[in-house]
């Protein structure tokens, strides 16, 4: 797996939003997950086939709604990049029960309550997120649909990869705890 900086083109924004690149079937690293998802979600044929495969009653409306959702994501990412808005406005806690400071907090990108698309990410630090994948939201619980279920596996795989590479090793964990206690 590789990690790229999405905002690397601007020196003032770099180091905030990252994305994973998974190797393709030939072992090559091409599109990062963020780019792959936006390409997929703006593909009318893909969306239409997806709706039919998932027995959506109003296919036309489904496609149009998802295309609208992507436009909202595009706008928000551009706004964050141009106006240096905090990424927390987009990436909310994945588990609604999660409270307080959590190490490598799992997040979901959601533009509004009507947003039918989810981008999954891990919070690395303040205003620093790593996108691990995404899916069309088809069920209330992520484990109830194969696509979101697969994404939950991916996000946990990436989390383990980070831990294996000493991101949030034990020392960092205690450093953070000390900082929190000191602040209190």
């Amino acid at each position, binding site marked *: 797996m*590789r*990690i*790229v*900086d*999405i*905002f*690397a*083109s*601007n020196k003032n924004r770099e*180091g905030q939003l*990252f*994305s994973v*690149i998974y190797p393709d079937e030939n072992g090559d*690293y091409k599109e*990062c997950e*963020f*780019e792959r998802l*936006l390409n997929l979600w*703006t*593909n*009318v*044929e*893909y969306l*239409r086939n997806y709706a039919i495969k998932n027995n959506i009653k109003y296919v*036309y409306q489904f*496609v149009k709604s998802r*295309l609208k959702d992507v*436009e909202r994501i*595009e*706008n928000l*990412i*551009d706004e964050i*990049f141009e106006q240096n808005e905090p990424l927390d406005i987009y990436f909310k806690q994945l588990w609604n029960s999660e409270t307080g400071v959590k190490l490598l907090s799992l997040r979901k990108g959601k533009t509004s309550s009507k947003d039918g698309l989810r981008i999954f990410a891990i919070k*690395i*630090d303040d205003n*620093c997120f*790593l996108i691990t994948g995404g899916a069309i939201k088809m069920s209330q619980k992520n484990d109830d649909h194969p696509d979101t279920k697969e994404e939950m596996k991916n996000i946990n795989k990436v989390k383990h990869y*980070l831990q294996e*590479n*000493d*991101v*949030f*090793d034990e020392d*960092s964990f205690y*450093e*953070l705890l000390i900082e929190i206690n000191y602040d209190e």
Partner: protein
Amino acid sequence: MTNKEKFKQLVHTQKNDIVAKNKARIKNRARLRAAQDIALKVLDRLDDLNWKQVDLAKQMNVSAQQVNKIVSGKENLTLETIVKLEDVLNLSILHSSTEKKRKIEVTEYVTQPVKNVRKNLESTKMFDLASYNEKHRYKNDSAETSTKFVNAS
């Protein structure tokens, strides 16, 4: 070394133009929406005709990849391609949503109640053409024109 510093060591220096591509999509949004509408129309029509994309490619004498681009809704279609699609699929594409909207507006105007039309005409009597012409230094033949105008209504 902080956690973020450790993380940054894992980041690959591979260049990307994701932000630029995002901006381009926003800039070209109107065109993309039109291409998406066309893609949906074409896909629906293919289903109606029970055709595969390969069949359409053959009929249009283009590559299957070209058809695939059309139905993805991302292609900047030429007029030639649109006319070809209309012809082969017997489908109205150029009759876009804006034209539909205009048609609705015209229909509403034509069919508005006669009393409203009369009311509008009556309100035009309030307009004093003579003063207007005088104010804007137009040729002073307004008195006659103004009378005719009121009489006509």
